[in-house]
């Protein structure tokens, strides 16, 4: 089971502590000698580095979320952003409102998807085409 540090920035909020992840010895020295509250700094570092600040990773079986989270992953260039954007666009009404999608909205969605896919096919893949598509779609909506 994976473990990860719960947080590396619980108390200092990274103010003047940019070295916190990379060099804890340097951080300790810096804080103890420069901070007005060296004891507080020391306790903070012990807390950060402590095993108590680690959490066991676990699957999201007992989730209290009302909507699921999806991760689209893959090697750069496989179409992650296009896929994620298309899913998000389709589920947006579901995510932001409980009202059913009207026929006009559904038709518009279909046209937008076809336009987007044609655009992708004609111009290549990657983030650029989607950004362009979003702009085009925004103009259409206006």
């Amino acid at each position, binding site marked *: 089971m994976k473990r990860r540090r719960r947080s590396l920035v619980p108390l200092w909020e990274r103010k003047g502590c940019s070295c916190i992840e990379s060099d804890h010895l340097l951080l300790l020295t810096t804080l103890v000698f420069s901070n007005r509250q060296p004891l507080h700094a020391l306790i903070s570092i012990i807390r950060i580095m402590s095993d108590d600040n680690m959490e066991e990773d676990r699957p999201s079986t007992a989730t209290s979320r009302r909507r699921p989270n999806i991760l689209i*992953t893959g090697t750069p260039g496989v179409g992650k952003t296009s896929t994620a954007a298309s899913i998000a666009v389709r589920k947006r009404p579901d995510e932001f409102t409980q009202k059913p999608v009207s026929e006009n909205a559904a038709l518009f969605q279909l046209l937008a998807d076809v336009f987007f896919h044609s655009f992708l096919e004609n111009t290549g893949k990657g983030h650029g085409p989607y950004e362009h598509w979003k702009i085009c779609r925004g103009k259409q909506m206006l």
Partner: protein
Amino acid sequence: MNIGKFAEENKCYEGRDEELDTNVLDEDKLLDLLEVAFQQAADEGKGIVADFHVCEIFPERWFDLVLVLRATTEILFDRLEARGYPEKKRSENMESEIMQVILDEARASYAPEIVHEVPSNTVEDLQSNVQRACSWWDQWLSDHT
């Protein structure tokens, strides 16, 4: 949520690899910021569709479905070339796809039942993947309400 863009906007980088023409990710900073964003979305009753080429750094509990997109080497080569990637970066990505590095990472990091490998070579593949994810989303909602 394009996590690469999110990382860029929030300066979650600890350096730059000039040879690969890429930034070096500050994972801890990224995860700390994402934790807040995911919690906020959950509090507002919203879901997140995230895309990123690294999947093993996230806590397992964040995701209910992990789609690993795959492309054939010929198609991927053309796409990366069209993006103007330097040769070394392109070769590393091609090698990663051939060795199915991301798929293995996903399988090692998440429960097997939520990890799905899907082809992403054509527009039809894209439509099919989107349709599949949307159907799954609807099913999830009906199972959890």
